[in-house]
């Protein structure tokens, strides 16, 4: 994962829930591309098209509230979303982002400042969000979580750890 990533954003309000992000009927899949076709389906094709053409989602409070479904994060990855910047996240959704390698940043000031369509760039190592030229700070991830994120998620991260262990045992 690059340290700095971003692009034009699509902006949502407060309390966007997991049933809206990926309806339960599609959880029979774990394929990011397949899931992406149904991301935000309850909100209609225009919103879906916007999400697919926006590398950054900006949202209000409690983004991703509801279910523990990990596909709420993977469907966004499949749709080409690189980062989510929100006033706040629901806790399981936040975990699922880190564990699937999707950058999720809590930065109320940036979430407030961004207007729909603005260029938003995130530098997760520096702890900075740039919104249309303005810069906002957030607390960078603790190292343990950063390593999971930068490995592309929990499973690839653990795979590296297990490989290193096996090499030591050899």
């Amino acid at each position, binding site marked *: 994962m690059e340290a700095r990533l971003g692009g034009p954003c699509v902006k949502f309000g407060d309390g966007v829930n997991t049933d809206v992000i990926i309806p339960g009927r599609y959880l029979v899949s774990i394929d990011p591309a397949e899931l992406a076709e149904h991301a935000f389906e309850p909100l209609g094709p225009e919103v879906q098209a916007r999400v697919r053409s926006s590398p950054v989602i900006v949202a209000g409070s409690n983004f991703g*509230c509801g279910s523990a479904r990990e596909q709420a994060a993977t469907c966004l990855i499949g749709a080409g979303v690189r980062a989510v910047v929100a006033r706040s996240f629901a806790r399981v959704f936040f975990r699922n982002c880190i564990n699937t390698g999707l950058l999720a940043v809590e930065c109320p000031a940036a979430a407030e400042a961004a207007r729909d369509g603005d260029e938003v760039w995130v530098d997760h190592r520096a702890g900075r969000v740039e919104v249309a030229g303005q810069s906002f700070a957030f607390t960078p991830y603790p190292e343990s979580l950063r390593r999971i994120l930068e490995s592309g998620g929990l499973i690839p991260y653990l795979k590296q750890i297990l490989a290193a262990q096996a090499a030591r045992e050899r």
Partner: protein
Amino acid sequence: MATFVEKVLARAAGLPEVIPGQIVDVEPDLYMSHSASWRCIRALERLGTDRLHDPSRIAMIMDHISPARTAKTADDQRLCREFAARHGITRFWDVEAGIAHLVLMEEGLVRPGMVIIGTDSHSTIYGALGAFGTGVGFSEVTATWVTGKLWMKVPGSLRVEVEGRMPPGVTAKDLMLWLIGRLTADGATYLSVEFHGGYPASLTVSERMTMCNLAMELGAKNAYVPPDDVTRAYLAERGVPPGEYEEVFPDPGAGYVRTLAVDVSDLEPQVACPHTVDNVRPIGEVAGTHVDQVFIGSCANAKYDDLVEAARILKGRRVAPGVRLLVTPASRQVAARIAREGIHADLLEAGALITNPGCGACAGDGGAMADGEVTFSTANRNFQGRMGSYRSEIYLGSPATAAATAVRGVITDPREFL
């Protein structure tokens, strides 16, 4: 001076103490995976290992789509069955068992002081027995299968002191909806919610389950009711003597992010309106709203007590013409007991359609709505499109309110039937 969650996570992390905000690696006592189990197995395949840390801590329950409706689901469920057999996972329950949370509690696997992770957000329910339960993603359960460990951020705690005598016709569900309406859907995000006081102490384990289950809809990481004689009796009935668990209590003087005092003496039935659980109104403001379907089900409110509460109103009456009443008992044990006691027949004679135990319509498995239709549900979520059409609506309330609503065909105050 520590809260419940600080004590229980410190123990699971092997540390003398922890503080809110600290990130620790804990060793959970039980790893629950429900219908997401096949996803855990696929993640394990990606990981390229077959070595499990401790298969006795793995519990798998096929609850969300049961029995299978498609060949794909049948294939996924077969994968789980074969995996469990191959790895000696004895805590495997198939499509007949019911909702994971209920099954684990009824089987005596959930005990005070335990740390339990589950692939379901409503894993907060385990707090009803004084355990720490929290929802995680399926990759996290897979990682825990292999390593026995998972990272947790130690949450701050919200202390809710509930006193007073609940008026007739008003229930723990109404209290929780009222609280969610007041605090909002992120009122307790990342917090451990502790329920103290005379009211929770007066409740059955079933009602405590409803409270801890609904705490998830406040954004809570976990919920907790202090273990007492009610807890001990529930466990003893399931063959778990006090020597087999360690009760954990918060210290007097522990630090809380917030303390809230609630008196239930004047509480009225509450209803969560579409499409968010915190869009809550007292019954008087929504009474008369037309419904097409009533669903009595889910891990929030389809336990034995809940079905008794509904049957009390439905017995000897008929569901209103044109209304569909679906009843999905939470577990096989619940279904067996209502059959034994004649409640099953009371519900059928009132016009209910009783399905097999499981998550049922709450998880979108059966009971779908057409465009413009309305369901009154005893579940814990009313998100847009959760039960069929994206242009349908879900109202949430207690089993008593659901039963009264089924009889009249419009949202109805259950106190009219007292």
